[in-house]
């Protein structure tokens, strides 16, 4: 497995060393272009935060303002009065944590077996598993709906945990873990077996402790996947108290469906900004986790 290193290219562009003012102009154009391209990536976040601090009448005002006339911090209080947003936020958090831990556990077990244990049927089963990797959730959501109904799990969080763990996200994780374990030399494990460890012991005591980076990547991807889930909550959850954040965001409308943009933007900011902050701090790790998913097998 290749790891992504953001090394700087040591190649120099010959064309840029010609004339000083030309080089300067090139620089300016270069940054101007990159900044210009940044606009659609950054502007939504700015607009979101700006909208979140406006009053309901200012937000529909024409022409709109980027910096609100008066900062309405009350919006951030009102969202919690409008619906049980704290509960909903907690729901999303704990579901994402359970999903992440479950995936780490299930996927590292399976990934280890596919990488290290030679057993009958392994290839066939792995192939079958991979067939689920790309499949849209919409294909299986209907039977899963009836399955969950039969198990009396409608309007609960269990489907929101089970489906991602055993759906495409779990498969991606299995795949990543398998790739990682394959890179561990067999000699390391043989030593463990000499010491009398069982197969599970080898996995638990030797292989797993070595797999920190891969597990971290799996954790990051799984958490975000669960945090962002929309279709499953939409189908399985109906009670406001059991909503997750994405569902709740779409529910900031008055009782009759007209969007309350100012509250919606405040709630969206609360959902997005913590994740963004963590991303900015740990961006190297996070970006690398995503990069791993593209490594070809």
């Amino acid at each position, binding site marked *: 497995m290749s790891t992504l290193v953001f090394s700087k290219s040591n190649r120099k562009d010959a064309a840029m060393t010609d004339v000083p003012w030309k080089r300067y102009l090139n620089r300016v154009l270069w940054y101007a272009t990159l900044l210009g391209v940044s606009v659609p990536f950054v502007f939504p976040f700015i607009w979101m935060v700006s909208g979140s601090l406006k009053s309901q009448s200012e937000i529909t005002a024409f022409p709109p303002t980027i910096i609100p006339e008066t900062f309405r911090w009350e919006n951030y209080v009102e969202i919690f009065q409008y619906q049980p947003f704290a509960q909903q936020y907690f729901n999303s958090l704990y579901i994402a944590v359970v999903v992440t831990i479950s995936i780490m556990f299930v996927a590292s077990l399976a990934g280890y077996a596919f990488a290290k*244990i030679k057993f009958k049927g392994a290839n066939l089963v792995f192939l079958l598993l991979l067939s689920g990797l790309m499949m849209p959730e919409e294909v299986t959501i209907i039977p899963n709906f009836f399955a969950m109904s039969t198990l009396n799990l409608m309007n609960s969080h269990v489907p929101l945990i089970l489906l991602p763990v055993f759906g495409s996200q779990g498969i991606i994780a299995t795949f990543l873990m398998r790739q990682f374990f394959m890179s561990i030399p067999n000699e390391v494990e043989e030593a463990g077996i000499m010491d009398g460890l069982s197969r*599970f012991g080898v996995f638990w005591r030797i292989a797993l402790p070595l797999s920190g980076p891969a597990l971290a990547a799996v954790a990051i991807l799984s958490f975000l996947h669960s945090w962002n889930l929309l279709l499953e909550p939409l189908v399985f959850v109906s009670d406001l108290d059991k909503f997750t954040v*994405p569902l709740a965001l779409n529910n900031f409308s008055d009782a009759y469906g007209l969007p309350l943009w100012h509250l919606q933007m405040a709630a969206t900011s609360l959902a997005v900004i913590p994740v963004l902050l963590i991303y900015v701090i740990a961006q190297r790790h996070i970006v690398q986790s995503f990069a791993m998913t*593209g490594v070809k097998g």
Partner: protein
Amino acid sequence: MLSVVLKTFGDLMSALVSQKKNLFSGETLSGWLFISPMMFGFLCFFIIPVIAIFGYSVTEWNILSQDSTFVGLQNYQEIFTENEEFWLVVRNSLVFAGGLVPLNIALALVLALALNQKFTGVVFFRTVYFAPVITAGAAWAIVWSFLLQKESGGVNQLLALIGIDGPNWLREPNWAMFAVIMTRVIKNVGLNMILYLAALQSISPDYVEASSLDGATPWQRFRHIIWPLLAPTTLVISIVTVVGSLKVFDHIYLMTGGGPESGTLVLAYYIYERAFEFFEIGYASALAVILFVLTLVLTVGQWLLKQKEQ
């Protein structure tokens, strides 16, 4: 209770392995035990459901009346011959994929090439272009539908600064499709950019240097050296992006609801709508079968293409 299961699970495996000291043979049972949690779930929530949709698809089954009758291939017949809406959905899905995939890949490549240069601020720009990837799709779609309002929307305000009277983005079928494609590209292009960047950085500088000495122009260098070396990455990216475009749900659900004039009704959303808003389980399952086959054909097709190339 679970802790017991877990312990038994571990004990079983220990027992198994301690009998056979050989690392590389006779581990079939332990292998199956390791994969059993994953495979049990996969069987329950993927394999069986996939088989089930084939079964559902030959019934007429309304969720409310709670009884289903076998109707053979009638749903498929209705989809392909009687329902004009389905062909509109097919057209929309093609337009969506056809617009999104090339745009996404081209933009990703350009950004990756740019960020592969040496300059101050490269980390900043990488952080910026990748930020939407980690942002919740629902949040992204909601903010954009706010931005794309006709008069008070931020986009038209920006356009007005340079003298353009922006359209009513989410209200006119062609603009709505364009808007959904663009917002989706901006949301996900960072991922492909990173994959390209990783590939670019694994290209040995010697290759490139050698060609510059030969007097190749930057374009020639890209066309004849870099682009061919990126081919495997491009293939992986294409598969993921094409299939990803079939899955699009949250943008459609939150931004347009399939409208206006059904102009953004795409297959994945259409399945949801038929099943969970109009409760036509049989019909929606037939659509799900179509999506299943389509995804399979596309994935396997591209994979075969890759095998052939190698």
